[in-house]
Structures are given as C-alpha cells and as structure tokens.
C-alpha cells in the first residue's frame, strides 16, 4: 500500500515536472559546451579557467547587485529568456587539436549544447571552431591569440580577446616609449614554442618590429615539451639582445628562468607573452630568480570595493588564488557570450549569432582593461587591448602604460640579484 502511494506521488511529480517544462520552455537552461585542456601540459591553466567559468556562470545565474554594471550580474539568470540559467558542459581536449575537433562534434551532436566556448591552445581553437562553423553553432574563442583563428571567412566564430598583432603592437609602443625616455633598446630576441600560438605571436612581433625599426637579433623556436633548454639560453647569451620576449607555456617558461639563472644569463629585460608567465605555478617557482620579469595582462585586480576586486575575492574564495589574466580573459569572453545570449532571447542559432554580431559592451561593463567589446566582420573584438605588468616580489604590478600604472617600472630587471 505504502509503496503504491509512493509510486503515485512520484508519477504525479514526474507529470508535473513534464507539464512545467512544456508550459515554460523559457525558464529552461542554456547549455554552453566548454573545451579546455583539463589534463596534460596545460592542465593548470585549463583548471584555472574552468573555475573562472564556473564563477562567471554563478554570477549570471544568481543576483549579484554588488558587481556594478557587469552585464547580467544584477539579475538571476537571463531575464530575456524568462530567467533561464546557464548550464556548463566541460570537456577535456588535453591540448590535442584532433581531440578538440572530435569533442566539439560530440558536444554539438550528442550533448546538444547551444553555444561553444574554448579552447585555450590556439591549435585546438583552430580545429574546434571549424566544427562549430560546419554545424552552424556560435563559438566564442575565449583567449586563444593566434591570428588565423578568425579571418577564415567564418560566420559563427567570435573572439573576445586581443590577438597576436594587438600584443605585438603593444610591445613596440612600449619599446618606443622606453627609447624616448633614454633607455637603449638595440635589438630584441624572440623565443617561441613552435605550435600555432608561439609561431603566430612571434610572426606578429617580427612584423611589428620591422615597422617600429627594432632589429630582431635571433628568433628561437622550440618544442614546449623540451626537458632541457641550456642550448637555447647559450644562443641568447651569444647574441646579447637587450630584451628577450618569451612566447612559452608553463613548464618551459619556468625551465627557461631556472636555466638562465644557472648559466648566469640576465638580459636587460625579459618579457613573457602571458600564458606560461601567468600560470599559477610560475610565480611560486621562480619569484626569487626572475625579479622584474615583465608580462602582459589585460586584467588588474583594482582597488578594494571595485567590481574587479570583488570578482577576484569571489575567485579567491573558490580556488585560494588570485584570478590570472588567462582565466580573466576567458571569463570576460564568457560574459560577452552570456550578454549576447540574453539579447538573443532564444536559443535559435541565427538569433544568437545576430546578437553576438551586434555586441557593443562599454569599458565600464567590462572586467578587463579593453576599450570595449565589439566584433568586426571576421568576429574579432576590435576594442581589445592590454597592459604590461612586472614581477615585484611575489606579485605582478601594473607598470605600463603610465596612466594606469600602480608601480614604477624597474629597468633593467634584477633577476636573482639583490
């Protein structure tokens, strides 16, 4: 007797749930498929970004009036879709482009996600976006920097982050500034890991350096899985460039810093192109030997009480760490995507695509130091920009441009000297 009544209640509940789901399709959820390297060489960055995406979804899905003008923070869920919530489906492509391609297909055909976000390594974004384009599913490239991801005539691919050429131009503007203030920058060296990311950023830097009349003493491509980089450091030592720019992933950038210390090689300045230099393991590993190393970041924690400061506190409560630039750019792209989904008002792919194309976020609506978010016809955010930061003690300080700086630039870098 008891059992039958329990069954009846369950059946009724199931019916009610079913009816509810038909009656209000809007208060459903929107599925976002997210491709990141959650294991493998770049797992740390993938995991950090995963935490950032989870936090962003939590901010969108619940009311956070304290976060100012950040889109969708004040309300719970997506108001234009009857308060629909965002549901995240994470997959792990391990940094493998062909796996990223398979997983993108699986997310679209089996998990039936409405939109995609990813994929950290440029090589993986390159393959995964091609799948999204084929199926007509909007893909937001969170932070991959390689030039060739947009510009293939794709309609469904959007990218919130600054790209290789934006960064390259920033470095040259910085060098020009330094020269004006009397610092000698005769030549630079470029050390890049040899997949899409490193190659394209290095290409962009070479091109911009030519325009800015800065000579490139040597360019060293290498494989990020190298277990020894002494030969490369010795090559640098021989060429004596004033600045060495590293386009490196995590283990390799730590290995470079340690090897430079071991071989007593300290150029006037080392600039890391984000990524490895922003990885949560970088500072603890090399803080005492890489003092003054520079890095780029469009993310700054800001003053206590500011929106960025609050976001960082929430992230810290979740992970125990400060939010890093890579994860923050992914988070910003996530917010831009959520904003477009809300404006689309439905999960119809064409409507979502149109809403993305019409995105126009102002600086005060952002958590990053961009001029805004607005996509050109290739899907690239044309208002993206970046700051330069420098390792002082055990944290990065914003040192350039002067108008935004929180600390004074140290030149030359101290490295391991006191």
């Amino acid at each position, binding site marked *: 007797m008891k059992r039958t009544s329990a069954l009846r209640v369950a059946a009724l509940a199931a019916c009610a749930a079913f009816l509810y789901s038909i009656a209000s399709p809007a208060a459903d959820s929107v599925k976002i498929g997210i491709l990141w390297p*959650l*294991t*493998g*060489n770049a*797992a*740390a960055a*993938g*995991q950090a970004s995963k935490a950032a995406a989870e936090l962003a979804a939590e901010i969108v899905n619940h009311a956070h009036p304290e976060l100012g003008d950040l889109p969708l923070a004040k309300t719970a869920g997506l108001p234009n879709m009857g308060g629909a919530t965002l549901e995240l489906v994470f997959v792990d492509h391990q940094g493998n482009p062909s796996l990223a391609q398979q997983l993108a297909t699986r997310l679209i055909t089996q998990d039936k996600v409405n939109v995609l976000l990813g994929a950290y390594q440029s090589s993986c974004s390159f393959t995964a976006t091609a799948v999204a384009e084929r199926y007509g599913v909007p893909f937001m490239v969170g932070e991959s920097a390689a030039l060739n991801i947009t510009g293939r005539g794709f309609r469904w691919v959007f990218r919130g982050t600054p790209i290789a050429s934006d960064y390259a131009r920033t470095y040259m503007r910085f060098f020009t500034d330094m020269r004006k203030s009397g610092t000698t920058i005769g030549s630079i060296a470029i050390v890049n890991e*040899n997949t899409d990311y490193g190659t394209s950023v290095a290409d962009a830097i070479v091109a911009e350096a030519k325009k800015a009349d800065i000579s490139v003493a040597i360019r*060293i*491509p*290498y*494989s990020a*899985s*190298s*277990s*020894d*980089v*002494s*030969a*490369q450091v*010795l*090559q640098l*030592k*021989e060429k004596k460039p004033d600045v060495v720019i590293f386009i490196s992933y*995590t*283990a390799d950038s*730590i*290995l470079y810093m*340690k090897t430079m*210390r*071991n*071989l*007593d090689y300290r150029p006037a300045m080392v600039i890391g192109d984000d990524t490895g230099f922003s*990885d*949560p*393991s970088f500072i*603890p*590993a090399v803080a*005492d030997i890489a003092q003054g190393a520079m890095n780029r970041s469009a993310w700054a924690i800001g003053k206590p009480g500011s929106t960025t400061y609050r976001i960082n506190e929430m992230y810290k409560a979740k992970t125990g760490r400060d939010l890093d630039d890579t994860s923050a750019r992914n988070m910003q792209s996530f917010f831009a995507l959520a904003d477009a989904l809300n404006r689309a008002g439905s999960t119809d792919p064409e409507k979502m695509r149109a809403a993305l194309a019409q995105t126009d976020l102002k600086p005060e609506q952002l958590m990053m130091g961009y001029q805004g978010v607005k996509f050109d016809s290739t899907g690239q955010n044309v208002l993206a920009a970046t700051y330069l930061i420098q390792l002082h003690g055990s944290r990065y300080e914003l040192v350039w441009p002067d108008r935004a700086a929180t600390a004074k630039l140290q030149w030359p870098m101290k490295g391991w000297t006191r």
Partner: protein
Amino acid sequence: MLLLQVIVGGLLLGAVYALFSSGLTLIWGMMNFINFAHGEFVMLGMYVALVVVTWIGGGPAAFGLGAAFALFVLGVVVYLSLIRHVVRGPMLAQILSTFGLALLLRYSAFWIFSANFVSLPQTSLSGTVNLAGILMPVAQLVAGVVAITLTVALHLLLARTALGSRLLAVAEDRNAAMLMGIRPDRMQALAWGLSAGAAGIAGALMAIAYPWSPSVGETFGLTAFVVVALGGFGSVPGALYAGLIIGLIQALSAYWLGPVYKDIVVYALFAALLWLRPQGLLGRA
C-alpha cells in the same frame, strides 16, 4: 668556450637519462619484460622528493634516499601483486598490464597532486659552480655524478657479486636456477625493486632542476625506451653510453641547428644505428 659549455650540459643531462634507463634495461635483461610504467616511476620519484621536502623538510640526501626507498618498495609490490601473475599470460597481457599500470599511476598522481606544475624550493644544491669558465649548475652536476656512480654500481652488482650472479641465473634459465636453490620470485622482485628504485632516485635528482606535473612520465618513458634500444636491451653499461650519447647529441644539435631539430637528429641517428646494429650498441645479437 660556449661549445664546451654545451657539451658539458649535454653530458650531465645524458647521465640522468642513463640512470633512469638502466632500471628499464635491467627488467628487460632479467625477464624479457617491457615496463611501460617506467616513466611513471620517475614521475613518482619526483613527487616523493617534493613530499619529503615540504613535509619533513629534508635536504637532497634525505629526499634522494627517500625516493629510492619508496620506489624500491613500490617496485617489489608491483612485481608481487601484478607482474608475477601476468608473466604467465600471453605477451599482449604483459604489455597491456604495465600500460594500464602507467595510466593508473599517472591519473592517481593527477588526483592526489592536481595538474599544477610544481618545482622543488631552493635547496642546498641550487647554486652553480664556475669551473674555468664553464658554468655547471650544482644540481645537475650532482645528478650527473650520482647517476654515473649508480649506473656503474648497478653494473658491478650484476657482473661482480654473488647476488648479481643469482639474478642473472634466473634471467638465463629460471628452472635451472631453481634447481640450484635460487628462488626466482625473490630475485625478480628484487630486480623490480632495484629498477624502480633507480627510477625513483633519478626522478628525485631531476626534480631539483626541472618543473613537472603528473604527465611528465610520458616524456621520460619515451626517452628511456630510446636509450635502452640504442644501448642494447638488457645491457646496463649500454644504457650508460647511450644516455650520454643522446644527451650530447640533443645538446649539440639544439645549439647548432636549433631546438626544433634536436629530436629529428637524435631519432635519425637512432634509426640509422639500429639499421646497422639492430641489437644496439652493447646488446647481444
């Protein structure tokens, strides 16, 4: 001078390659058994070093011996619980069992230690020595010297001691060894312990100089196979020469031709050598 620096760096790296490969070649020589989890043993050695340093605060001697001991025990346990049973099975089961073990160890490490890269804090071996203009990081110098010493010691153990003779007797003919009063299980468990212990101490030595994450075993595992194949399967001195040669070729080709070409050069020479001498440098035909 710069060239000399490159050569020294290559040889020091090669010595560590030799140490962790010697364990792999030992197992092959003893049992005709390929251990795909060998790279993972090196990885675990690195984490044991980290745990010893952060929890107990021991120096290089403590974490080196700690890693050797912990991995020795693990090697014996792996032999007694897994290998002893699968050697009676078909070849494929033998291969897949250690492959599975590799994945088990790697993902257990992901679970316990997370995917983040870690590195050892500064130790007493963090400095560099300047020897007539050649800079040698103390860590790599110690690693190289210890590696060569241990590889030679392992060779002497096998070639010159009664224990070594018993180990080799089991490798030669298990049944005949049993008739001579040698217990093959005990000998092979010991071989696994020595093999894993060598990998563990190599890992601890590498940990001083390199940042790592749980997936580091893949890289080391592959290198170990190449070293063993080049040196000759089953030959410990072969592994020593091959490790040094590979370290040297990698360093020189990275310096002269650029780092992206170094593996091409190494594997091209490797293929060429195997074509001329399929049994490896010191292997028996």
